[in-house]
Each structure stands twice: as structure tokens, then as C-alpha cells.
């Protein structure tokens, strides 16, 4: 987007170390301007501010406009505004400024800049670019038809079959062209001589009619083989595309899923691949056949009579162009209808799930009116389109007739001049009517290709995405895990927000740590970093002395048991859900885990015991029961490290007590990191770690922290006040 350069070496002269192209002026009008950072000063046009320790740069953004402010501690010196597309450049500018300011105080050359990450997907950004190339492409590039060529990668394994299919297409098309050719001798050598008084040569008739039948049978057999083989190949390509995309999707990090709508991803893997599939097996195949046929017909026609061939083929491009124009008009109309349909269905999707609200507020009449309105709009658009659409088929017919008419006129004239025979004209007419009818379907190729290209782009958007939690290139073997974790000065940024700022903590094997703090203080982020759902921005997390980033991801996660606030049960039996992390677990193991999780008894109450279905359709379990199944799931893999992320927040106090008992079994002998909103659940913790705004502010046991009357005490008091009595005004603020 903007040009900027970094020079890692300390420059001797006033070199430019960063630039920021601003695109808004003081009154937020679009403009283009540039501010420049050198090791000595910040320059903007004529004005310059020499770097000094007093200067500071801050940025903030609101409603799509970013502001970079320069102040000297006493007053504002300058403010620059830009649209958020320039935000990466602005952040880089600020970073460079701070680096060079630091070396003013230390007198040392600036440290190497840390690797930057994409604010959207967290993948590392190459040093010479400001935007993540993947996200930028996804955002800015419209689908191009060339994307379809990238599908070749999936066609490679079926090269042989594709080639056979191509040969068959060639042969089948040739076979369909034989019958019109045979009408020529049939006319000239049999029928016309008969009309002139000669007897019919039956042997010749049998020979010619046999040829017609043979050609038809051959075309049938070849056409069948071709369609079958190519359909087979395109189905396989589609299936490969789907599985490859899904496999790749599963490997992507949580960030990617966080930024995408589930429905959108499902549509990409489901219907988009299917659309490409149909395009390959139907539209592209038909188009190729048609092109082949027209080319072959042209060759035959020219070989019979070049001039007549020229006249026959001349109107073809014109007619094709006319059809294309009408189609184009229709296409925009159809697109509009699609969108109007979406409007109609969205009214339904809105009201049906919310029917209780609609009825409770007695708004049936209004909703009906809304639907009628959407329907009326639908009708309007359809009427408008039908005006063109009803014209379309007759127009194609008319154009065909006109084309045929031209051939008739020229043909009769040539016959009159005795240049051609009647048989030649019949053959020409037979050929031409064949491909005029194909012109319509050929004109469709443009729009279906565009649609398939759009689908292909959306799929390759997924495939091109690199996981932001990469597998190490040279993985270090994970030593036997005892359960100790060393968090060393960890920073984490999400987008431009710093979420963790220098967190250090050493967790001993078998220790239970309670993480406490307001929401947004970074507790869950810390846990996610330990699970390596994300990678740290700075610092390191080490297990048994090995940096997590050097360990194969799956191998590390095998040692982690995770119990989440919202227990997710897959569709399947209870036993399958418990054994999710260890599919080959024996029945004894499953039952033992369920017993330890205090889940055994209520499972026995289910109609089929451990074989009862749960998940999407099996919603007969309460929140606490589902949670205990997920605890059993974590118990079964016997993890060294256990993470409880608000495991008891979603249930009432009574159920919490049961879950707490289940958890006590789980915690025994394992390193446990528990996040809880209700502080009372963390009484058993060996150490409580209090976090605030991305930093650890207090560490200690409950009693110590209460004595201190610091952050923890305030949190605790706020909670107990809420429990005992309706909170006085102001208590909420204290807690929030």
C-alpha cells in the first residue's frame, strides 16, 4: 500500500528509516501526504521535530480513522490522520520511532526490530512488507478467471483419464458429424437421379443408411464413454478438492476460525466445491465439445465448398455476440433475483426462530406485512426480468432462422449457377442447424466460468492460508513431561492491541494455579498460549527447558487436558465422547473416567447407558452433566497438565459442588491451571495469580492476598457484596 523501508544498520547520515503516507488531512478530507522519520527527526513537509527523549508518539483509532499524535509531554505538537488501511504502516512508524528514541538515551545502536505479525491472522509478515500478503489478497483481489487454472494441481493425478476423455470427445464429436455428410450422396446420387427418371440403387441406399445408423450408434457409444470417464474424473477432482481444503482448514490456527463465520466456511467447502465440480463436468465439457464441433464442421464445410462455408459461418460471430449481450442483461437480472430471494428468506429466518417474541408482542400483522413487502419486491424484479427473458428464446430462434435463410439464399443462387448440387446445400443446412442451437449454451460459459472462478478463489483463499502456529522445521523431541511450565517475559499482541505485557511465571509440577482477574485481563490468552493455540509475540514458554515453538504441536497437546466453560459434545454416543482424545480406550477405562468425573450414575440413567446418543440431537443432558462428561474426557487421556477455563461458570451452585468434587479427582497429581470467575472455586489453589491489563499484579495464597488488601481483596470484596446484598451503587464499578 505505501512505500516504506527499514535499514537495520545504524545510518550515519540523515537516512529515512520509516515513512507514513497519510491520506486524510486535519478536517478529514482525502489527500495524500507523507511524514518521514530519520534517526534525527520527524519531518512533515516544511516542519520538522528533532528526536528527543521528551517526544512521544501515540496512536488511536475511531470509526475507521487512525490518528497519530506527537506530543512533547506538555502539549500536542502535531496530529496526523489516516484511514485504517495505513494502520500497519503507522504502527511500524511508531515502532521505529520508539526504537530510535531509545538509542538516544542508551547511546547504543537500535535493536533489530521484532518479527511483526498480521493483525488479522497473526501469521508472520515478511520483513519487506507491511501487510500480510494472504489477508490483503483475500480482501482486495477480485476473483479472476485465471484462478481456475490452479485447479490443474488437482487434475494431475488423473492425467491419463483426462487424456482418454479428450480423445473420446474428439472421436464422439467426429462421429456426430458423419450423418449430415452422408445426406449429400443420398441426395445427389439417389433421390435426385430418381426424380429425373433413374431407378433407385438399393445397394447404395442400404450402404448409406447403414452408415447413418452406424455413425449414430458409434456416436452414442463414444458419447457414453466420454461422459462417464470425464464425470468420474471431475467427481474425483471435486472430492480431492474438498478433502484437501478441509484438512488444511483443520490445521489452521484458532485465530483464523475466530475471524470467519461458520456458515461461510461450510459453504466454501460444501457448495463451492460442488459448483466447481458441476462447472468442470458439465459446462466446461459441453463448451469444449461445442468448440470442437464448430471447428470440425468448419473444416468439413470448407473442404466441400469454401465460398458457401464462408457465408454460412459469417453470421456466426455476430449471432454469438448478440446472444452474449442478451445473456449479460439476463445475468444481472438473475443476480438481482438471487438477492431479492435472500431478502424474502431473511424475513423468514428472522421471524421463525423469534416466533415467541413475535407472538408475545402481538406483532404477527407487522411481520406478515414485512413479508408481503419483500414478496412484492420479488415480484417486481421478476416482472422486469421476465420482459427480457420471454424475449430471449424467440430471439435465438429468429437469429437461427435468419442465419439459415442466408444459407438458403446463397445456396439457391449457387445451385442456379450450377456451382453446387442440391446435396451439398442439404448437407450445409443439416450442419448449420446443429450448431446454431449450441450457440445459446455456449454463451452461458462466460457467466458460469465467472461463478466457478469466484468459487475457486474462495477455496484457494483457504488453501493459501499459512497457519500462524507453524510446525517447527526441525522439531525437538519433547522430553518426558513432568508438568512444570516456565513462562518467561511473555508478550502477546492481538492486532494492534497488546494483551499480555511481560508475564513471567514459573509453575511447578503438580501445582494448582488459580488465575484471577477482570474479563479482558489476559487470563484466557495466557492459557491459550500455554496450549499453543497462539504463539507468543515476544518472550517464550518453556516445558522441561524446551521452547514450545520447537516441539511438534500435536505431541505437546497430548499432555494437556482442557475443560472449557461450554462443554462441547460431538454427535455420537456418550462413550465416544468420553473417548474422544483416546479413541482406542477400553470400556473399563471409559467407565473409570466417568466414575472419577462423577458422571457414571447419571449416564446409567440414560436409556442406553454409555451408548446413548448426545450432541446436536441428544440434548437431554443438563449443563452440569455435559460438563462432567467433558471432565471425564479430560481424565481419560491422563494429562500431565490440566486447564480449567471457567469450567464451573455456566452452572448453578449446587451443580458446581458436584462438578467441584469431580474436579478434585481430576486435579490430584497434575499441574492445574484454573480460571474462575467465582473466586470461591479457587480456594484449593496453591497459588493465586492476579492479572490486570495484561500483567501479573499479585501472586500468593488466598489469605496472604486478603491481608494485602490489594487487587485480589477488591475483587473478593466486590463479589461477596454482590452475593450478600443488592450491590450498592459504585460496587459494580469497582468490580468492572
Amino acid at each position: 500500500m505505501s512505500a516504506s523501508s527499514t535499514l537495520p544498520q545504524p545510518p550515519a547520515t540523515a537516512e529515512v528509516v520509516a515513512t507514513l503516507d497519510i491520506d486524510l488531512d486535519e478536517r478529514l478530507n482525502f489527500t495524500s501526504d507523507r511524514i518521514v522519520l530519520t534517526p534525527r527527526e520527524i519531518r512533515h513537509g516544511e516542519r520538522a521535530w528533532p528526536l528527543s527523549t521528551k517526544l512521544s508518539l501515540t496512536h488511536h483509532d475511531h470509526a475507521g480513522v487512525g490518528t497519530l499524535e506527537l506530543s512533547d509531554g506538555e502539549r500536542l505538537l502535531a496530529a496526523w490522520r489516516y484511514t485504517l488501511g495505513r494502520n500497519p504502516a503507522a504502527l511500524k512508524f511508531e515502532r521505529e520511532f520508539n526504537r530510535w528514541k531509545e538509542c538516544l538515551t542508551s547511546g547504543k545502536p537500535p535493536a533489530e526490530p521484532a518479527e511483526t505479525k498480521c493483525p488479522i491472522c497473526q501469521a508472520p509478515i515478511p520483513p519487506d512488507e507491511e501487510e500480510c500478503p494472504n489477508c490483503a489478497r483475500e480482501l482486495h483481489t477480485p476473483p479472476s478467471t485465471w484462478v481456475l487454472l490452479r485447479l490443474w494441481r488437482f487434475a494431475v493425478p488423473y492425467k491419463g483419464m483426462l487424456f482418454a476423455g479428450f480423445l473420446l470427445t474428439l472421436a464422439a464429436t467426429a462421429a456426430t458429424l458423419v450423418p449430415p455428410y452422408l445426406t449429400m450422396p443420398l441426395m445427389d446420387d439417389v433421390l435426385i437421379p430418381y426424380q429425373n427418371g433413374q431407378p433407385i440403387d438399393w445397394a447404395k441406399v442400404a450402404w448409406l443408411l447403414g452408415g447413418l445408423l452406424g455413425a449414430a450408434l458409434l456416436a452414442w457409444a463414444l458419447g457414453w464413454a466420454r461422459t462417464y470417464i470425464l464425470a468420474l474424473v471431475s467427481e474425483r477432482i471435486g472430492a480431492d478438492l474438498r478433502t484437501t481444503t478441509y484438512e488444511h482448514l483443520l490445521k489452521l490456527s484458532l485465530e483464523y476460525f475466530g475471524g470467519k463465520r461458520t456458515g461461510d466456511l461450510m459453504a466454501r467447502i460444501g457448495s463451492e466445491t460442488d459448483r466447481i465440480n458441476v462447472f468442470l463436468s458439465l459446462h466446461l465439457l459441453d463448451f469444449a465439445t461445442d468448440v470442437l464441433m464448430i471447428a470440425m464442421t468448419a473444416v468439413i464445410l470448407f473442404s466441400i465448398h469454401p465460398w458457401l462455408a464462408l457465408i454460412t459461418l459469417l453470421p456466426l460471430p455476430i449471432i454469438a455476440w448478440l446472444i452474449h449481450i442478451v445473456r449479460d442483461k439476463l445475468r444481472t437480472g438473475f443476480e438481482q433475483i438471487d438477492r431479492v430471494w435472500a431478502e424474502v428468506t431473511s424475513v423468514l429466518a428472522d421471524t421463525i426462530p423469534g416466533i415467541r417474541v413475535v407472538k408475545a408482542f402481538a406483532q404477527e400483522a407487522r411481520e406478515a406485512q414485512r413479508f408481503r413487502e419483500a414478496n412484492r419486491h420479488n415480484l417486481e424484479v421478476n416482472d422486469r426480468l421476465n420482459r427480457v427473458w420471454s424475449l430471449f428464446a424467440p430471439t435465438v430462434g429468429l437469429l437461427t432462422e435468419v442465419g439459415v435463410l442466408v444459407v438458403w439464399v446463397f445456396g439457391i443462387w449457387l445451385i442456379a449457377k450450377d456451382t453446387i448440387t442440391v446435396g451439398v446445400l442439404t448437407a450445409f443446412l443439416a450442419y448449420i442447424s446443429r450448431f446454431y442451437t449450441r450457440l445459446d449454451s455456449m454463451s452461458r460459459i462466460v457467466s458460469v466460468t465467472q461463478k466457478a472462478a469466484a468459487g475457486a478463489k474462495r477455496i484457494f483463499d483457504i488453501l493459501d492460508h499459512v497457519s500462524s502456529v507453524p510446525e517447527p522445521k526441525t522439531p525437538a523431541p519433547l522430553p518426558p513431561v513432568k508438568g512444570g511450565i516456565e513462562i518467561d517475559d511473555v508478550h502477546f499482541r492481538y492486532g494492534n492491541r497488546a494483551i499480555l505485557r511481560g508475564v513471567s511465571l514459573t509453575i511447578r509440577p503438580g501445582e494448582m494455579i488459580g488465575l484471577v482477574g477482570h474479563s479482558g485481563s489476559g487470563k484466557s490468552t495466557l492459557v491459550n498460549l500455554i496450549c499453543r493455540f497462539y504463539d507468543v509475540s515476544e518472550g517464550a514458554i518453556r516445558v522441561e527447558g524446551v521452547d514450545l515453538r520447537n516441539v511438534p504441536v500435536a505431541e505437546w497437546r497430548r499432555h494437556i487436558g482442557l475443560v472449557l466453560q461450554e462443554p462441547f459434545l460431538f454427535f455420537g454416543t456418550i462413550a465416544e465422547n468420553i473417548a474422544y482424545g483416546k479413541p482406542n480406550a477400553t470400556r473399563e477405562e471409559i467407565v473409570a473416567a466417568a466414575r472419577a468425573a462423577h458422571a457414571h450414575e447419571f449416564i446409567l440413567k440414560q436409556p442406553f447407558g454409555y451408548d446413548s446418543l448426545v450432541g446436536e440431537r441428544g440434548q437431554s443432558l443438563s449443563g452440569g452433566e455435559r460438563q462432567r462428561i467433558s471432565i471425564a474426557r479430560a481424565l481419560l487421556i491422563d494429562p500431565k497438565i490440566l486447564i480449567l477455563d471457567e469450567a464451573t461458570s455456566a452452572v448453578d451452585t449446587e451443580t458446581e459442588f458436584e462438578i467441584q468434587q469431580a474436579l478434585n479427582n481430576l486435579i490430584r497429581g497434575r499441574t492445574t491451571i484454573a480460571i474462575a470467575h467465582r473466586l470461591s472455586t479457587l480456594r484449593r489453589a496453591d497459588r493465586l495469580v492476579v492479572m490486570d491489563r495484561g500483567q501479573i499484579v499479585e501472586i500468593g495464597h488466598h489469605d496472604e492476598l486478603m491481608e494485602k488488601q490489594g487487587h485480589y481483596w477488591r475483587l473478593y470484596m466486590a463479589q461477596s457484596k454482590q452475593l450478600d446484598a443488592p450491590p450498592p451503587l459504585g460496587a459494580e464499578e469497582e468490580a468492572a
Partner: protein
Amino acid sequence: MNFQLTRNAFGRLVLTTAEGAVHEGVVPVRAFALTAPEEDIALVSAEGKELVWLPTLEGLPEATRALIREELARREFMPEIRRIVAVSSFATPSTWTVDTDRGPTTLVLKSEDDIRRLKGPGSLLIADSQGIHYLIRDRRALDAASQKLLKRFL
């Protein structure tokens, strides 16, 4: 009127209440930014707490009103599209070249869903890939070429 509004050396608004409490970095916010932009304006502290509710700006001292308007103008960014010069493609994402009341620019439309119909007749709000909202006050008042381009996305 029981508060005072001034601008400090850092360019931030400072609000002093009648009780003498001083809030720095106060921000004016329109409660109904689209349907009633001139009425119901709140002054919100830097922490996001509402300090003053102004049903209307009428009756405020001239200086205070000017400060509020100035700050609103500085924070608000909703360019109004006057003309659509070109679009890169009818399939999204599509890059539009447009003329706005704040000068010519380009925007990237991620999907047709980002075009929102507003209550007024023919008025549209278009969110671009960076979260900037562009307003089309009345699409029927645009020139024919712009309308034709726009229609492909509606």
C-alpha cells in the same frame, strides 16, 4: 447548563462539572448517528462513562457548542459518495473508485452484504473492508452511470 468545556494543550476536551470534578479527554457521541444526528448527544468520559446528556445543542453557550461541533467533525468520518467513477469487477471483493464530499478515493467492497439500506428512500450505507462507512444519501439522485454500476450490487 452546569458544566464547562475547554480544550487543553494536548487537544483534548476537558469537562468541569458543577461539583468541580474534572474529566480529561471527554468525547461527544451522537446517540442516533443516522436517524437524528443533531439531537441526543452524550458527552462521554475517556473511560466510556456518560457524563452529560444533551437532548439538543440549542441553548448551550456558543463556545461550548462550537467545541462540541469541532470535536464531532474531527472524529466523525462518513464520506458521502457523490459519484461512482468505476468498479473493478461486479464480483466481490470489488474496488470502487468514487468521488465523495471529502475528495476522490477508492474503497474495497468485501461483499454485497456490506451495503445496508437505511430508512430514508434510496439511502444506503456502504461499509468498506477497513470499516469506513460511506453514505449514499439518495441513490436515485446519483448520475445515470453511477446508478447503473450501483444497481449491479443491489
